[in-house]
């Protein structure tokens, strides 16, 4: 069954991909091995998993300003997520998404986005409209 999730209009282009979800927070500096394309922070719930070409669904952004440069560098090297969805973005991740041309949305009307989408769900992210559509639930596959 298709699920339509309204959010605040976001940044970047309309993209489609498979979700990778955790209730954890996110920083490109703190959490990633950007050369390997994996989460590297031992305590992170996605530790060891690849984020490349996934739609990351996380709680909020944390930590420093470096992510604003890093998202573009990750995109240029072909080792970037397709989109990031947050319950609440911070300014850095929004600026970084704008600089990288990466899709980013937050502030979902129906509640905690890390509970509304599950890892493996196939989703369309449409930032200009402020809409995320879940086409296929991983649990239903």
């Amino acid at each position, binding site marked *: 069954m298709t699920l339509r999730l309204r959010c605040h*209009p976001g940044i970047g282009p309309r993209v489609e991909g498979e979700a990778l979800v955790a209730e954890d927070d996110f920083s490109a*500096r703190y959490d990633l091995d950007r050369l390997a394309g994996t989460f590297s922070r031992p305590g992170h719930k996605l530790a060891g998993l690849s984020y490349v070409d996934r739609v990351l669904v996380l709680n909020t952004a944390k930590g420093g300003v470096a992510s*604003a440069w890093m998202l*573009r560098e990750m995109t*240029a090297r072909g080792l970037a997520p397709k989109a990031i969805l947050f319950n609440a973005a*911070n300014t*850095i991740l929004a600026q970084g998404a704008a600089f990288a041309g990466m899709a980013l949305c937050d502030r979902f009307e129906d509640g905690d986005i890390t509970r509304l989408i599950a890892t493996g769900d196939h989703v369309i992210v449409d930032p200009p409209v402020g809409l995320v559509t879940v086409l296929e639930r991983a649990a239903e596959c």
Partner: protein
Amino acid sequence: MKLNGEERAMLAGETGEPRRWAVEHMVEVGRMFDAVDFVPVAQAHMMADTESLGEAGVAFLEGLAAHPPAERRVRVPMLTDPRGVDLSYYRPLGQTEEMADLERRTIAACTNLGILMTDSCVTYQTIMPPVRGEHVAYGDTGVVIYCNSVLGARSNFEGGPSALAAGLTGRTPRYGLHLDRNRRATRRFIVAERPEGLTDWGVLGGLIGRLCGSYWEVPVLEGIEGAPTSDEMKHFGAAMASFGSTPLFHIAGVTPEAPDLEAVCDGPPPEPVEIGRKELEGLRGNFGASGDEVDVVVFAAPQLSHVEMARVADLLEGRRVHERMALVVCTSPTVAADCERLGIVGRIEAAGAVVLRGTCFYNQYAREIGEANGWTRLLSNSVKIVNILGGYGYRPALAGMEDCVTAAATGRVP
């Protein structure tokens, strides 16, 4: 967003491509956060370490810097955060010529853009602190939280591209911390015991940052009697911004916007949360290492002040860094120059420690230098740095400055 005539002209490219890009970028970000218009800024401060920039970021800066001077030079004073390579000391760290070349290209591009390469995350202690109510566009979360909270200035966390856009145009979208309504307290903490020493202040900051968790929460603290020192506030704020994403705090009776609790609350104050020894030990326990051997001791994040540098020199007096160990001290070029004149750098280096100028340990290819030197077990008095470096392949541990120096001399955490 509502643009005035000058902003529309910049967006139309009438003042050159760099300013056109800058307005376009800021409008996209401003719309995300419902900014109505721009606000003029007096200063900008850009994080531009080459580990973060990568080839793509450096090429972008070079592209802007290739435009004619009238089109490319920043319009307000613009400073830089720590770099990724100290060009006077990179080979011994295991940094490569490729890293150094990227750094040289970045410096050349920034210089051509008219940026003052201060290479510091303690500009508020050393260069030009903003004044209360001044709108600025600062990078480095530690700089932002200190200037918002302790000085009463107004800045969002500005990543490198957005800080540069602000520098090129002299403005930033009016959202977030530029608006009164986002500076009011949303969380309230009662501190049962005043922290003692920089590390304890960092632990308290880290805990509050973790509890707040979001950029849009503003904590107010009660129970702190009398003003902390600048270095204590520095470590407190840097850790808070690191563990959460917190850009502003108030301390009732201490920070300028909070002469008392009511002054920062709209209506009844938020329900209080008490923070005592148990809560602080809960965070500290994640970084324990008593009795363990360590590979490297680091003083950084934020860069050390004159006072901290002098304290490190005093603690090293009559001691030598253990032959199996490294002790790395990161400070700003400004502080380093003063401390050379004062003989402080000489005393630190005579003990076998390394003083790096204009870098900070975690943004100078920490993973690569760790691998090159066989550093895994890292000890620091900085709560911010032990929070960051777990993701870089280190096993970070926390101790006060005195115990860090003892560990550097003996190879083992007391």
